[in-house]
């Protein structure tokens, strides 16, 4: 297997974009390729994620992106794994590059849902759950994660300020990230006075519906030769699945797919949690961040919820989590999210995370979940 690097990365500002998903995808793709020092003609395959392209009446967007980049003869495909779509696409790119099938790949995720109202967007998101056994019984994504949060609350009672501290931390980070949807801090009062969306989750426990696009270029070490940026060496690219339906899981206190993908990734990288300097985890809701850092092996079960309030996971803490602002405040344009986590690692590695630098940038982990854990990707990166 060849060593594969992330050599270029770019994101637009998440939030409400005037571009269509296709335009945004093409623009961030070109920016990522330009940053890598490669040319569009060097791309051997384009992996696209655009989970809800149907909301823009557009499927098969890969050839349109490639056409817009001037490389219409390059193959493309769309990779869908709900909210983990573009990290799944990154995994496919890794397999092709590390396996020696191609020298360089473009991975791009793009989503546009802001032309829909909250009801329509909530309903679109909910189709990633099990329709006859969850969605049709009244589930929404806040509802599913609210259910997990209530099970966690029952097992490990904690004050609301603990989840609140996660939201406050991620908003503070997003306030320093020009790509972020919400570039403003919030107070504990703001958090506590926000309305309940799906108990015990409040408005400020939930990530927003965001538009956005992000892209990375993955290339073989031997193909790049002289990188023009500090590359991210992909030490691990691991994926896992688990029982989709909550009703069939042995417990509701974690996501089995995170545990499996995390363990696989650490084995691939020959690393342990203590070797990781900072990470981006899938915080679609505050409870998801608490559970993720437990399932990945960084905190014992029942203690992850305290980490933000105790200052461990803040930007200058012992283990910074979601220095980008996370899904919670940077925003969650479904198919762009996984790749945008890697954009944050790229910017931290390259000294481009102005004003939100983490203390140590030797190694980083990204964790991206599809729906309520039916799928999960974990990547680990280091310097050369």
């Amino acid at each position, binding site marked *: 297997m060849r060593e594969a690097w992330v050599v270029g990365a770019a994101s637009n500002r998440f939030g409400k974009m005037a571009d269509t998903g296709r335009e945004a995808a093409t623009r961030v793709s070109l920016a990522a390729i330009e940053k890598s020092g490669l040319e569009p003609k060097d791309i051997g395959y384009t992996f696209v994620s655009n989970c809800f392209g149907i909301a823009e009446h557009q499927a098969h967007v890969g050839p349109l992106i490639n056409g817009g980049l001037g490389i219409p003869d390059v193959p493309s495909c769309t990779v869908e794994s709900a909210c983990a779509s573009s990290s799944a696409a990154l995994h496919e790119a890794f397999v092709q590059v590390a396996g020696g099938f191609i020298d360089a790949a473009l991975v791009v995720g793009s989503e546009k849902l802001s032309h829909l109202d909250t009801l329509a967007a*909530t309903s679109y998101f909910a189709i990633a759950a099990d329709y006859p056994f969850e969605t049709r019984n009244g589930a929404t994504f*806040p509802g599913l994660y609210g259910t997990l949060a209530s099970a966690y609350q029952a097992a490990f009672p904690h004050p609301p300020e603990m989840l609140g501290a996660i939201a406050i931390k991620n908003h503070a980070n997003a306030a320093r990230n020009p790509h972020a949807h919400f570039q403003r801090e919030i107070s504990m009062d703001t958090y506590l006075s926000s309305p309940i969306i799906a108990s015990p989750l409040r408005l400020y426990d939930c990530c927003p519906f965001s538009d956005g696009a992000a892209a990375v270029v993955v290339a073989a070490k031997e193909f790049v030769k002289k990188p023009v940026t500090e590359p991210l060496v992909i030490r691990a690219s691991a994926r896992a699945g688990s029982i989709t339906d909550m009703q069939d899981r042995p417990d509701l206190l974690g996501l089995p797919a995170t545990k499996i993908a995390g363990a696989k990734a650490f084995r691939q990288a020959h690393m342990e949690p203590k070797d990781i300097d900072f990470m981006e985890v899938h915080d679609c809701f505050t409870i998801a961040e608490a559970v993720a850092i437990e399932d990945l092996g960084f905190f014992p079960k029942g203690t992850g919820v305290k980490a933000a309030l105790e200052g461990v996971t803040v930007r200058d803490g012992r283990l910074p989590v979601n220095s980008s602002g996370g899904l919670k405040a940077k925003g969650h344009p479904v198919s762009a999210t996984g790749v945008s986590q890697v954009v944050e690692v790229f910017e931290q590695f390259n000294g481009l995370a102005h004003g939100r630098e983490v203390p140590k940038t030797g190694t980083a982990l990204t964790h991206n979940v599809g729906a309520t854990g039916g799928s999960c990707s974990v990547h680990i990166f280091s310097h050369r």
Partner: protein
Amino acid sequence: MTDELPRAGHAVADFVQGYEEGHKLRGFRCPKCGFVSATWGMACPRCGGRNREERELGQAGRVVAFTLLTVPGDEFLNDAPYAYVVVELDGGGRITGWMPTVKSVDGLAVGDRVHFVPSYKPGVQFAKEADASP
């Protein structure tokens, strides 16, 4: 030409028809590990065992986890707030459902007894047992 592909004991449509018209909850039991589940599939989601047996699920049980939803999906637009629940059914198996009569967080607790309520509305519907609190 007959359909020679393997089939489950019942189809997803049979499950839906079961609670909508037959007033019963249809599920499966794994003969290998004994796991009982409402979820459709050709094999047990826990152990992979094949040849799951038909199993009619209990109609009452205990709330394992729940949330009070104030922002619903489109099919539940006129019913919010309501509770979304995971219920451990008597006789085994868990199922998710919704409870339109629960209108506040204080209206339900983990461990409460609930029972299935046949309804013309979508989804598996539950209500608190009348004798839930002594």
